[in-house]
Every structure is written in structure tokens, then in C-alpha cells.
């Protein structure tokens, strides 16, 4: 590709960058045990949860911020962050009609209509605004099947026994620095419970919106699929454009019992900062699924296009015999974005299987790293892993790094890892152009061809959207 044209492949203006003017209930900046207690009190939490938070906070104080990732950013001042902000509305409304119209309008603008008339027909949505759930659609319909889909806060009130049983059971409160921080101060998030034998009748989706400029975002998602249950869940994320950085440290825990299946898809489009790297979200996320039961299956699919910094490794702990873990990822970085992402597949049980497909695309001056761990424990007899990590470089100033760690202690386990690096060659571009296909479309065809194996894993409703999102990110004024 000619150098002038690659330079023009810059992201188009971020269209979700607006701020919603709404009164919020915010506490003062800074983090202390009192702040943790205050958050818990505001949310009227049971004592077990306050104790969970306090343990996490004390752990956090003893932990160090990780520095092993291929990321550079100025030191984060954890005392300069607001740890609780919520749009001012009284209790969560029984009916959407009572939700502040400004909030509904915000989600409308983001393409997530919540009102009865316009909502997506086969997708139930939990809308989270500045870490607080403001509305969940189709709750009643789901309840008919015994499926619980609600905000985390509601779940704490209505299903405290489930929360107490599963919270922190996959990602403990001292798992890592950011997980400990989240455990101490998380404000809301989504909770999903699929009872034994139930196949969730519709796609579930949570839409996260950051609005405030100085507020940290700490959501917590917990999905439990009992024996034989199955669910497909998708999360989307956007944020306004600020010239400061916002910290987002979420935790997601998935639990799959015998024969259960959880498919978790993410389309992450947080604000990435401008072309000079000013502003953008610092995205430090801990996601882990535990295949607790035999023959259970957890599949992560992620399309990561936003954030100034991405640090996330959705992982599977494959305990149940014959359980299956999957990770399909597209990570696109442009301008000054930095992404260090990948997965961990920890094979504990016999005949467990995992598949990793990672596609990294680096453009501009960005840095895109795949970091993965495949581990075969002593009892993982007959276990298998296949990994494929491909990088595509656009322009000669972007970096693509690959760090696949492999560890095996079981001779009867097989691991296979392949990786390649490619670029869009001038000849390929010319070939498409000489058939009447424009430069931008040619680039986007090749990029989506590169990502096809991953897009195929997304729920139908979102595959086309992800494709479009990627095209937009690379679109620009071709000179």
C-alpha cells in the first residue's frame, strides 16, 4: 500500500461522543474504607456484600498495579476519581414511561431503543448508564421461563442467596489489582441466571454507557447457567469524548454447570481518544468463565475497537470433564491506541478442549499485542488446544506483538499454536480496484475477510454491525 493512502486510513469521527446533560448523584473524589462503606450504604446492601467489598479493598491496598503488559500510560491517581455516580432518579422505575426521557433519548441516539414500540424484537436489553442500570426490557417474558435478567443491584435485593453463592467464586476479590478494585467499589452491572434445563428464549444484551468525565466505571456482571441451561449474551460499550482519561475496571464472572453453555459476545467501542492520543477510556477488565460442570461450554467472542488502553484476557477455567472453552477475538487499534489482550485457557479436567482464534489489526501509531496462556494441568489427560493468532499491519508505524505462553504437564494433551503476520498488499488492493471496487471498500473487504472466522461467531444480529463498525474505524478521506 502506498504510504500516503495508508496515512489516510484514519478513523472517522467518533459518533457516540456526545454528553448527556443530566443531574447525577455523585460522591466526592477519592478512595478509602469509608468510601467503600458509603457505596454499600447507598445501595442498601446486605452485610455479606459489605464484607466482600471491605475484604477486596484491604486486598487491593496490598496489591501492585500490573506492569507486565505492553502498555504505556501515565500513572493513574486513584484518589482523583469519583467512585460513585448515578443519574438522579428515585428507585428504579416499574415502567419505562417513568424513566427520565433524557436517558431514553440517549440510548435512542446510540441505536439502542428501549421503549415498547421500538425495542429490538428478539433481544432483551439491560441499559447501564454510568454504572447504574436504568432499564431492563422483556423482564416479564424472561421470567416466564424462569430466567432472571436484571441489574446487579436488583439481584442483590431479590436473589441475595444466588449472589452470595456465586459472587467472587470465579474471580476472587484478590485475583488481581483491577479485580480487587472493582470488587471494592463496583456500583452495578447485569445479573443473569438460567435455571436447570432452560434454553434462554432470546438474546440477552447489556449496553454500557459512560457519561461522566471524572467518574470511574466499575461494573460487575455475573452469569450462571445451571445444568443443561444455555444463553447467549452480548455487551456493547460507548462513551463521550473527553480530553481526560476515564478508568473502566469491570469484572465478569461466568459459571457453567454440567452440560450448560454460555456464549458471551462483546462489541467494545469505548471512546479511543483523538488522533494524538488525548483522552479515551482506560479499559482494564477481568473476565473469566468457569466450566464447572462436565461437558459445559463457554465461548468468548470479542470485537475490540475502542478505548485508549485495553487490558483484558477473557479466560476459561476448564474443570469439568469434556468441557469446552473458546475465544474468538478481533482487536483493532488505530492512531495511538494500545491493546494488550488475549486469553487464558486453563485445562484442569480430562478431555477438555479449547480453541483460540485471535485477529489483531494495527494501524496508525498504535500497538496491538496478543497475550495468551494455554495450560495443561496434570489431570488434563486427552485435552486439546488449537490456537491461531494472526496480525495484520496497516502502515509502517504500528506495532503487532504476539506472546503466546504455553505450559504443559500432561503428555497426553496436545497443544498446537500457529501465528502469522500479514499486510494488505498493494497487488491485492490493485486487483480489487481493477475490478471496479473502490479503495476503501477494497480495504474493508480484506479486513473483514481477515476477521471472518471471528465474525461468524457473533450472534446474527450483531455480526453485520461489527463488520460495519470495523469499516467505519478504518474509513477516512482517501487521497
Amino acid at each position: 500500500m502506498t504510504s500516503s493512502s495508508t496515512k489516510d486510513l484514519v478513523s472517522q469521527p467518533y459518533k457516540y461522543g456526545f454528553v448527556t446533560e443530566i443531574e447525577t448523584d455523585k460522591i466526592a473524589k477519592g478512595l478509602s474504607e469509608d468510601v467503600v462503606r458509603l457505596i454499600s450504604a447507598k445501595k442498601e446492601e446486605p452485610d455479606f456484600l459489605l464484607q466482600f467489598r471491605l475484604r477486596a479493598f484491604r486486598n487491593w491496598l496490598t496489591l501492585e498495579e500490573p506492569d507486565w503488559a505492553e502498555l504505556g500510560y501515565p500513572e493513574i491517581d486513584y484518589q482523583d476519581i469519583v467512585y460513585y455516580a448515578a443519574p438522579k432518579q428515585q428507585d428504579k422505575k416499574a415502567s419505562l414511561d417513568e424513566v427520565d426521557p433524557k436517558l431514553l433519548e440517549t440510548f435512542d441516539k446510540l441505536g439502542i431503543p428501549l421503549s415498547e414500540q421500538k425495542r429490538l424484537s428478539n433481544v432483551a436489553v439491560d441499559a447501564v448508564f454510568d454504572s447504574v442500570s436504568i432499564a431492563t426490557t422483556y423482564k416479564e417474558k424472561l421470567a416466564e421461563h424462569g430466567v432472571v435478567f436484571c441489574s446487579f443491584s436488583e439481584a442483590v435485593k431479590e436473589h441475595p442467596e444466588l449472589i452470595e453463592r456465586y459472587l467472587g467464586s470465579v474471580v476472587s476479590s484478590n485475583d488481581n489489582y483491577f479485580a480487587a478494585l472493582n470488587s471494592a467499589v463496583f456500583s452495578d452491572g447485569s445479573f443473569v441466571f438460567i435455571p436447570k434445563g432452560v434454553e434462554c428464549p432470546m438474546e440477552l444484551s447489556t449496553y454500557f454507557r459512560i457519561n461522566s468525565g471524572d467518574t470511574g466505571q466499575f461494573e460487575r456482571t455475573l452469569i450462571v447457567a445451571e445444568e443443561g441451561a444455555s444463553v447467549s449474551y452480548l455487551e456493547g460499550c460507548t462513551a463521550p469524548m473527553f480530553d481526560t482519561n476515564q478508568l473502566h475496571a469491570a469484572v465478569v464472572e461466568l459459571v457453567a454447570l454440567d452440560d450448560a453453555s454460555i456464549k458471551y459476545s462483546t462489541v467494545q467501542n469505548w471512546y479511543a481518544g483523538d488522533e494524538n492520543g488525548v483522552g479515551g477510556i482506560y479499559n482494564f477488565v477481568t473476565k473469566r468463565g468457569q466450566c464447572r460442570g462436565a461437558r459445559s461450554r463457554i465461548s468468548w467472542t470479542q470485537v475490540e475497537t475502542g478505548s485508549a488502553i485495553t487490558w483484558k484476557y477473557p479466560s476459561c477455567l476448564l474443570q469439568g470433564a469434556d468441557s469446552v472453552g473458546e475465544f474468538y477475538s478481533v482487536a483493532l487499534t488505530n492512531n495511538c491506541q494500545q491493546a494488550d489482550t488475549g486469553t487464558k485457557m486453563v485445562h484442569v479436567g480430562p478431555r477438555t478442549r479449547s480453541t483460540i482464534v485471535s485477529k489483531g489489526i494495527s494501524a496508525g501509531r498504535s500497538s496491538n499485542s496478543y497475550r495468551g496462556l494455554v495450560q495443561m494441568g496434570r489431570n488434563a489427560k486427552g485435552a486439546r488446544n488449537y490456537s491461531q493468532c494472526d496480525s495484520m499491519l496497516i502502515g509502517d508505524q504500528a506495532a503487532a506483538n504476539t506472546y503466546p505462553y504455553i505450559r504443559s504437564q500432561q503428555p497426553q494433551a496436545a497443544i498446537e499454536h500457529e501465528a502469522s503476520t500479514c499486510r494488505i498488499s498493494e497487488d491485492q488492493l490493485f486487483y480489487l480496484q481493477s475490478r471496479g471496487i473502490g479503495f476503501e471498500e477494497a480495504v474493508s473487504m480484506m479486513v473483514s475477510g481477515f476477521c471472518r472466522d471471528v465474525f461468524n461467531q457473533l450472534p446474527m444480529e450483531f455480526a453485520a454491525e461489527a463488520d460495519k463498525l470495523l469499516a467505519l474505524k478504518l474509513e477516512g478521506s482517501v487521497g
Partner: protein
Amino acid sequence: MVSSVLAPVQERGRAALERLGLPTRRQEAWRLTDLKRLAAVAALPPSSTSVRQDLPAPSEGVLRLVLDGSQPSLEGQVWPQGFSLLNHADLEQVLGQILDHCGCAEAWPVEFNHASSHQLLALRIRGKVPPLELVLSGGDGLVATRVILILDEKADLDLLEVVLAEGVSAHSHVIEVHLGQEAELRHGFLATADGQASLLAHLAVEQAPRSRYAFTSVVTGWSLGRVEPRVVQLEGQAETTLKGLAMTSAEQQLATHTAVRFDGPEGELDQLQKCLASGQSHTIFNGAIDVPRVAQRTNAAQLSRNLLLSGQARVDTKPELEIVADDVRCAHGATVSQLQEDELFYLQSRGIGASDAAALLLRGACQEVIEQLPSLAKAWQPLNRVMESLDR
């Protein structure tokens, strides 16, 4: 050969070791290392000289030198045409320079060698010369050897380094190699021990354009082994081939850390690392490839193949690719498995017993690397040595 130039180097090494202390688990490069064994190596007294007598006769036309870390000089050595010792002035200029270029001058094993070695072989090679064999060996305790090879433009050399050790001993070896334009070096490294000795070997190689460097390492039988080849293509446009066979049994631990950097365009790398772990042993491979922006049209391929031969053994492998140039071809792959059941079954179905079949397949797996050793290695019967060490 011993040289006053080493005095300041020793001082530097001692100071560095004092400053650095022993490596810790918090350092990524040492995270998996058995640090207790490393501490034991660091505490060993210098070896008392004992040159081995049981060496096989060298192949014909081969120049053999024996380095035991203490022999004062090679005075009286007759040098074939094309070999010459570096003079004092040259030595002062080049000593440590290649380590610097390869970014490993301050690595712990290098500083450890700095502090310990008082023997230095520094040779300049011109034109096509007879094969050179360096036997690195000593008695109990710590042996430290250091070699510098400067291959002038178009020089052509077959080099075999043989490291032998037994008993409670350790060998620290540092070799620096410069390949001038169009120079060729086929470098074999055959290091076998009896399971008690330890090895810390560091290679720093810099390549000028159009030079070709082929390194083949066969390492087995070390209680604690660490082999670290570092190659820099100074201006790209060179060929690097790295083939490694690392085998462990009993409770041995053997780490191979390779690093290749392309500081110019059109460089080529072909790398294969094989690790075989049996018993309760542990192999580690860490293969870094660095392709910065100047290294357009680099073509690099790395393959890490691991055989895990026992339920108590452990394999860790970690390729590391860092690429900033867009017009490059970099591929890497890794596999970990046991011997292929269908291959075993095929042999058994032809009447070969299970253990013979396994041995046959293992020989095959080793042979792929061993046959890449320069031909002078034949005198050492490398395949037999390796298979013996596996049986032990």
C-alpha cells in the same frame, strides 16, 4: 590468550554481581528458573585444572583447541593459514562490543562470566579456513570460558564447540561472534553432561549484510542449563538459521532463550527449537523476534516443537514476536504433545516392540536437528551421546 584486558572486565563483573544480586522470580526472564540451583552455581569455587584425556580423535584436518578456563596461553600453537590471534589493541576495542550490540552485556550470566573468566580466546578469521573445534571442559567447580571470533569479509568457517562436564561442576561460557559481509559460519554447539553439572552459555552474534550464520545446538544432561543465543542483523540482508535440540530427564531443567533482532531490511530467519522432557524434568523455550520499523521485507519463521514424555515432566514455551514493519512475513508455531500414537502404532504393527518403537521415533525427532551440526561433529557421535543421556 590470557590477557590483561580481562582485569577491568573482571572488576566490572564483580561489581555488577554485587549490585544485581541473584536474579529473582519477579524478573520475567528468570520466572521459571530453579533459582536454588542457580545460587548453588554462583557459590561454586573455581575449578582446579584437569584436562580430560578421553577425547575422541578429531576428524582429519580439524584444528582442536581445549579450553579449561585456566590454561594460561596457547603459546606455541601453530595456526593454520587464515587464523590469527587478535592483538591487544584490537581486543581492547572489540571486547564486549558485540554483547552490547546484542543487548545482553548486562545480563546476569554475562556479568557472572565477566567476574569469573580469566581465559580468553580471541581469533580473527580470514578467507576459507579449516574447521575449528573448541572443547570446553574442566574439573569440579566452576569453569569459565570466553571466546571472541571475528570473521572478516567473506570468511568461511565450520566451528564446533563441545562442552563436557561431570560431577558437581558448572560451566559459564560467553562467545562473541562478528560476521563481516558475506562471511559464513556454521556453528555447532554440542553440550552434554551427566546430570549433575550446570551450564550457563551466552552467545552474542552480529551479522553484517549478506552474511550467513547457521547455529545448531544440541544440549542435554544438565542439572540446570541455560543456553541463550542472541543474534543481531546489523543492517538486515543476512541469513540466520537457528536449530536447537534441548533434552532433559530426571529432575533437570533446561532453558533456551533465543533473541533475534533485525536492524535493517530483508533479513531472513529460519528457526526450529525442539525440546524433549522426560522424568520429572522441565524444558523452557523463550524465542524473541524483534522486527523494528527499519526491517521491511523481513522473512522470519519460528517453530517450537515440544515432546512431553512423562506425566511428571513439564514444558513451557513462549514465542515473543514484536513487529513494527508492515511489509514482513513472520510466522511462528508451537506444538506440545507426546509421541504420536499413530506413528507408534504403525511401527508396532510391523512387529517392533513399544519401547523400541518409541526409541526409534525419538531418534528420528533428535536426528532432524543433529544432522544440521557441522560435519566435524561426527567424531563425537552426537546421536549416540544424546540417546545415552536420555537412557540415563
